[in-house]
């Protein structure tokens, strides 16, 4: 399930917002890496906003904002362009990333990746051929501190109020139906 909250939320005209943040998330069937069944943001999709999810994700499109997959892995594919701070369990970069990367388990910057930002993770690998500008935190104490700050919060109880209108959940049958077509939909 993925959840997206748009920066600026209701300030933007609905049509404009829908166009700018339309995304398709579908089960991965063709990627050569990563477990089968993870979601994909395909190359033709551009998202501006905060992206949250509870399954592994491959980004081949363009995402600007924040990505939070704290218990799952994110792969930025060779065609992917992400300008966002990313929080995930494991992060694999093959494409373009601008922003900080927080991997609670690992961050792998692969050959062909272009990364500009700061990396914080207990395990960081970088392949020859990758372009990297920024910093890598290698102090276990500093990494542990950062991971504690970024640890997933306990899930809210069922009785808790739903998020503000600017936040939409898709793939959740209990979520209110948006007026515009879903900006992000899960086919899994």
């Amino acid at each position: 399930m993925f959840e997206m909250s748009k920066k600026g939320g209701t300030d933007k005209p609905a049509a404009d917002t829908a166009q700018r943040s339309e995304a398709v998330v579908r089960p991965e069937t063709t990627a050569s890496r990563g477990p089968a069944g993870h979601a994909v943001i395909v190359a033709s999709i551009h998202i501006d906003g905060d992206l949250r999810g509870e399954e592994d994700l491959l980004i081949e499109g363009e995402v600007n904002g924040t990505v939070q997959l704290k218990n799952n892995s994110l792969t930025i594919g060779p065609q992917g362009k992400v300008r966002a701070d990313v929080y995930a369990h494991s992060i694999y970069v093959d494409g373009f990333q601008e922003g900080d990367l927080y991997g609670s388990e690992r961050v792998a910057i692969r050959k062909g990746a272009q990364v500009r930002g700061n990396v914080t993770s207990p395990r960081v690998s970088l392949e020859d051929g990758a372009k990297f500008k920024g910093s890598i935190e290698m102090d276990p104490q500093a990494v542990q501190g950062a991971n504690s700050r970024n640890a997933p919060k306990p899930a809210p109880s069922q009785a808790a109020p739903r998020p503000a209108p600017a936040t939409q959940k898709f793939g959740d049958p209990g979520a209110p139906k948006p007026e515009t077509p879903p900006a992000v939909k899960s086919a899994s």
Partner: protein
Amino acid sequence: MAAEPVGSATRAANSNAAPGDGLSAPLFHSLVDRLGDGGRFVVLDLAAARPATVRLLSQFRCRYEVAELADAIDILNAEQDPRRLRTLAEAALPERRREPTDIVLCWDLLNYLNRPALTAVMESIASRSRAGTLVHALVYYAERRMPERPSCFLPLDDQRIEIVAPSGGERAAPRYSPEDLASCMPRYAVDRARLLRNGMQEFLFRL
């Protein structure tokens, strides 16, 4: 200043030189030893991040900052205005953070900066570093020629350095003398220097 036998640990990119054919660089070795004293360090690498460097530094409590300055050399060398040059030098370095830099790895990059650019870069570094910061650099000194572009330096497990020269031509080396460097880097003092067996001068400067 001690000299080592003349030889070369430099290999061209894609050559078949045996792996592990490294250059002994005692001052680099001493810097790595210093990292192992248990304290936390901020290490600024002016070159591109390499897996070997990441592997080496991951053994220590440090923050590894990467400038990949080679991408900015031509722009820096072309700028004439000192104020704009300083701005460009600052932009070529990683985003400034509150924690000051402790160790700087220049590798051979100083050879590729003209004097004004060298001054601007080292001044920007000084302004983000603490007193006592150590700067390691390799300067073409005995050789009159050097590769057209900066080489790739790979720290080996035994703390020697493997040098991979880029494919392509050569150019004249500026052969900066200690006096040249002192005038370009007035805030730094030469802590130690060694002539290496490949003809490069290994410097450790102290801020």
